[in-house]
């Protein structure tokens, strides 16, 4: 029969932080994926919340399109605060 599908595991290390990709594992269903994730990735008290997503449900960008996807953002310097000149007297803004 078919083998257990692959799941991606995201763990929030503590409240206030975002969920971060920790790794993957195999499980037959979402419930088992959560339980397995708890046992595999939080054995040393590494998390307070877990998300699991079946890997096949993730749509990833193609690195070959990296140029068109990400490079146009490189010259939009006006999105960054350092683009704007302020008088030195204004210490924090």
């Amino acid at each position, binding site marked *: 029969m078919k083998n*257990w599908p692959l799941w991606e595991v995201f763990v929030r290390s503590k409240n206030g932080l975002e969920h971060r990709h920790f790794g993957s*594992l*195999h*499980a*037959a269903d979402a*419930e*088992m994926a959560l*339980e*397995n994730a708890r*046992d*595999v990735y939080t*054995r040393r008290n590494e998390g307070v919340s877990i998300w699991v997503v079946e890997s096949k449900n993730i749509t990833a960008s193609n690195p070959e399109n990296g140029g068109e996807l990400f490079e146009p953002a490189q010259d939009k310097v006006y999105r960054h605060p350092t683009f704007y000149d302020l008088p030195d007297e204004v210490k924090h803004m």
Partner: protein
Amino acid sequence: MMKNENLVHYIYGIADNALILGQRLSELCGHGPSLETDIALTNMALDLLGQTRSYYQYAAALLGDGKTEDDIAYLRIERQYKNVLLVEQPNKHFGYVIARQFFYDVFHLLLLQELQNSKDETLSAIAKKGIKEVSYHQRFSSDWIKRLGDGTEESRKKVQEAIDDLWKFTDELFHMTEDDKLVFEAQIGVDVTALKQTYYQRVKEILDEATLSIPEIKWFQKGGKQGIHSEHMGYLLADLQYMQRAYPNMKW
């Protein structure tokens, strides 16, 4: 009137279950049906052995004769172990592992939920910590009972076989020894007979959901709590005690 000795025996009763079940689970380490399941079973073994140590350390303190947790774990003779017959049953196949775990977890959680109200602060604290662990065990084993029961034809057959075989050991969980009674009267121990109805109700709910049937068995086995064990126990202890017996009075 409860004596120190009664309390120590009472603690053995609970702790030996954890030790022996932990020992059975640790036999499986490296041999599970999947890597993920292997890790999960080992986690439960670690929880149980952790609880065992807390109980034995407390018992050793009560004894006050210089004995350690290891003396208690390793240097008693078979008749002095007070665990129920259920937990010493072998890992015949994964169905047995799960059924044994499930039957014990449901009881274990009910027991600890009562024990946390014990007048004895140490036991109450151990119980409170254990509740979190055992709630997870019960969730894990219940989920697997459902998966195996309502999975394939083969898995249903196998887990039903385990349930039919192990059912006869469930009644002993609710048996009160003389020690148990005295410790209960001192408001330290739990009256396990009062847990029986809830227990079978919970077990039935999960088995129903798993489309498994309740065995129609009227004869139950008991003896473990009096130290009269099954033939499996001697081999389990031979393994467990090997080093301490072969090399007495040494530090490891």
